[in-house]
């Protein structure tokens, strides 16, 4: 009995250590962002400043290109998430339900894209997009991000479809519905958790991407958050409070999305694993 109790305490203790390790850096970000400048150095290692302020947030929102970065990132991340989810649902459905020649070629192609360094594509993609006028444009970024995220999302969606019995749409097809109608009206609604997981996963990935955004975008007008924040950092390298306030705001959408979908992510991967 005592052995079990000690085990329980050790288990909860270990979980708490993990939570502390996961959250501490984020807590610190928040702490510095609300510390007034005059206390920043004198109370550098205190856990919470004796006085807190939202001045840094006001400054960042009013005096920097921050709102533009935010808007750009929102457009890029949501368009990418939407496009990837539509395309990968279709392809994932095909991989899950059809047996056709070429299926393994498609799977192999998608696996290959997971193996090579994406940095390698920086130069050629720049050269390809530049004559099309897609460098320095949000459309260009959305196209590139959609392609990068589609392979993993397709595997994810496939594992969700695998978890849904085939009889459902077969029954509808016997009743005269076309396969596509059955897919849209019966299967897709059942896969909503999977769709949520894919949307959230891709949204955070597109929200965070840095290297291609740096390479393809120059100038503030179409800079996304990562690029904007980096230029912001080098420009205001002394003002930690403002940088961290910008950081906290960059964090919010991604974290919100993630908190909503993380359950489905584990569920989806489990469904795939059960099916082998």
């Amino acid at each position, binding site marked *: 009995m005592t052995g079990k109790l000690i085990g329980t305490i050790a*288990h*909860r203790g*270990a979980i708490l250590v*993990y*939570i502390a390790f*996961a*959250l501490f*850096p*984020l807590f*610190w*970000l928040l702490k510095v962002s609300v510390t007034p400048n005059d206390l920043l*150095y004198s109370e550098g*290692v205190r856990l919470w400043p004796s006085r807190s302020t939202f001045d840094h947030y006001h400054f960042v929102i009013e005096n920097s290109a921050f709102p533009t970065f935010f808007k750009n990132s929102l457009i890029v991340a949501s368009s990418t998430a939407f496009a990837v989810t539509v*395309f*990968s649902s*279709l*392809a994932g459905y*095909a*991989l899950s339900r*059809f047996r*056709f020649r*070429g*299926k393994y070629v*498609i799977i192999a192609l*998608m696996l290959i894209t*997971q193996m*090579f*360094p994406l940095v*390698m*594509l*920086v*130069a*050629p*993609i*720049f050269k390809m997009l530049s004559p099309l006028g897609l460098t320095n444009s949000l459309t260009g970024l959305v*196209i590139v991000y959609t*392609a990068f995220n589609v*392979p993993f999302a397709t595997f994810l969606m496939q594992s969700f479809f695998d978890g849904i019995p085939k009889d459902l749409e077969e029954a509808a097809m016997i009743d005269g519905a076309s396969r596509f109608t059955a897919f849209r009206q019966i299967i897709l609604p059942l896969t909503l958790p999977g769709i949520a997981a894919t949307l959230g996963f891709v949204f*955070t990935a597109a929200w*965070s991407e840095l290297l291609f955004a740096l390479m393809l975008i120059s100038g503030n007008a179409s800079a996304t*958050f*990562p690029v904007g924040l*980096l230029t912001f950092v080098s420009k205001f390298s002394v003002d*930690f409070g403002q*940088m961290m306030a910008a*950081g906290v705001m*960059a*964090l919010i959408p*991604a*974290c919100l999305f*993630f*908190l909503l979908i*993380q*359950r489905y992510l*584990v*569920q*989806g*991967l*489990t469904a795939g*694993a059960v099916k082998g």
Partner: protein
Amino acid sequence: MSYHQVAGTRTGGKRPLRRFADAAEPWFYSAPVLVLIIAVMLVPLLLGLSYAFRDIQLLNPFSGGFVGLKHLKALSQDAAFYRALKNTLWWTGASVFLQFFFGLILALLLDKPFAGRGIAQALVFLPWAVPTFLAGLNWAWLFNPVIGPLPHWMVSLGLLSAPNNILADPQLAMWGPIIANVWWGIPFFAITLLAALQAIPRDLYEAAAIDGANPLQRFISITLPFLAPTIAITILLRTVWIANFADLIVVMTNGGPADRTQIVASYIFTQAFRRLDFGYASAIALVLLVLLLAYSMLIVVIRQRLIEKD
């Protein structure tokens, strides 16, 4: 019964047009994905391979001619490249090992039901949602003695003699990005391993418990064998991915101090982005690609050997 027989009996009586539509159906569903992958990933990949043998400089309109093996020859004498290669090994090895180790423990902790598991899971997985550039900046700030607590804590623990920024210390700098990477990457391993754990049939554990197996024995004889395929594929994918993962290093140290944290991926990016020398950057990328392919083949062969032994 083989697939062709089934297809034959089903479609045998239909008109050719109908049969074509049936055969084409899966391709309609997968077409957008295929087009995207081919146009935005595979074509640039081939182009990139050709750049490795050409003189491509972004701001030089007269560049573009074939130079044969010039870049590769220059690369073989590039001391910075060899240093980057060594750093890549260290960065990848340490990051993957620590992420896997702590991720596995976390997955095991989260596998059994307890009050508050949902919220605990959401919180420990949160770092993964943090954009990598921000994770890098955030850890760089934590290591900064002016505004971050870590140097002071490390002095108290006797790890450092003075509260200096380890990112500026050539001997220690690599630990900065590695720690940030471990913090950011634990959730990925935990999520995939947790999904695999939850797919293990529960009755196996009950049967083993009835047979008197202790927790360690149950872990070794049930959990590990079930997890092995997931572990193998996750580690393989993660190794390749982390070897290519330059964000944290670009943001935290930019390869410095004195190139001590320059990995091959960040070196490629520096060549392409700062020096605009796409030809040389592609040559480095080609070498990295070959090395990673060799590594993947090795893992696949070893795995095959292990399966045949069983």
